[in-house]
């Protein structure tokens, strides 16, 4: 299992390197063809590169710490039995801490579903995992500013709660009309 994911990672890295190589080749060709564009392209890239270098190592360290100190089974343990408003905020909070791509969260969500956690909480958890990551918010702060980041964060929390409740109602309602339907 572990070996397989490692192999998959290697494949992904090759794909990313290929993507970088192609981009680099296109850039070189374009800049050779249009020498007058060299200055604006290079200075713009350089600016963003500097900003990235300043924060990326710190962001990666934070992500590594979260991943090691908040393991997945802790999340399942706490979220499986919480409910109400407290539950939904806990779900958002729990989703915002650990890191990794969204597909890592699917098995956790499935485990929660099996444990009988509320659907609204699971949706809130998944959405928080997808877009309220703390390291991610920090990068957003760096590039788009405090006002943008805070506004989007607050709106996202509000609408994620609304969405969780709506989906729960739809699932419960369709479960009633269609008889018993398993989502497995």
């Amino acid at each position: 299992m572990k070996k397989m994911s490692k192999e998959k990672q290697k494949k992904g890295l090759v794909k990313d390197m290929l993507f970088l190589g192609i981009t680099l080749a296109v850039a070189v060709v374009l800049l050779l063809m249009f020498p007058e564009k060299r200055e604006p392209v290079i200075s713009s890239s350089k600016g963003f590169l500097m900003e990235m270098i300043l924060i990326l190592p710190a962001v990666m360290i934070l992500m590594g710490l979260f991943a090691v100190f908040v393991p997945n089974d802790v999340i399942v343990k706490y979220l499986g039995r919480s409910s109400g408003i407290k539950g939904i905020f806990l779900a958002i909070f729990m989703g915002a801490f650990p890191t990794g791509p969204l597909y890592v969260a699917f098995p956790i969500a499935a485990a929660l579903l099996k444990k009988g956690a509320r659907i609204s909480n699971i949706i809130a958890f998944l959405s928080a995992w997808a877009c309220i990551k703390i390291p991610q918010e920090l990068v957003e702060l760096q590039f788009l500013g405090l006002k943008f980041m805070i506004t989007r964060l607050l709106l996202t929390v509000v609408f994620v709660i609304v969405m969780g409740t709506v989906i729960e109602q739809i699932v419960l309602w369709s479960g009633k009309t269609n008889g018993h339907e398993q989502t497995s």
Partner: protein
Amino acid sequence: MNMTAIFINALAVVCLFFALIKDRTKTKQALKMAVISFFRISPTVLAIILIIGLFSGFVPESQISKVVGENAGFRGVLTVAFLGAILHIPSLVSFPLAASLLEKGASITSIAVFITTLTMIGMVTLPLEIRILGKKLALLRNGLSFIIAIIIGLIMGAIL
């Protein structure tokens, strides 16, 4: 070095400090993960930064604002929402891209919509999500996320 960068680095140092006090081996493991993921994401970061540079050199601002600017209307918003849903770029990298588009005349609404659909919706991972969570939950989550992303974007455009 701006304030935000200082804040982020300080936060990392503080967290690292407490982690070291709490558990040395776990912290070491975390640092190892950090190094690996740094090198793992570097090619994508470099590629996107190059693309941003090429974009700002070759695509005129009028073109960008025509597609995703204030006057692009609802069609522009829908376009970026779809782009965000389909594209599969790490969210960390999407922020510099969004910032450069904003600089070049994209509207706040379209930027917010783009980031939100990009992070919340995964067309590439949808089959996996359906297999693990069931068709109903997966489709409802992705579909409603699309709608709320547009609502969030419109509200942000109105108040910022």
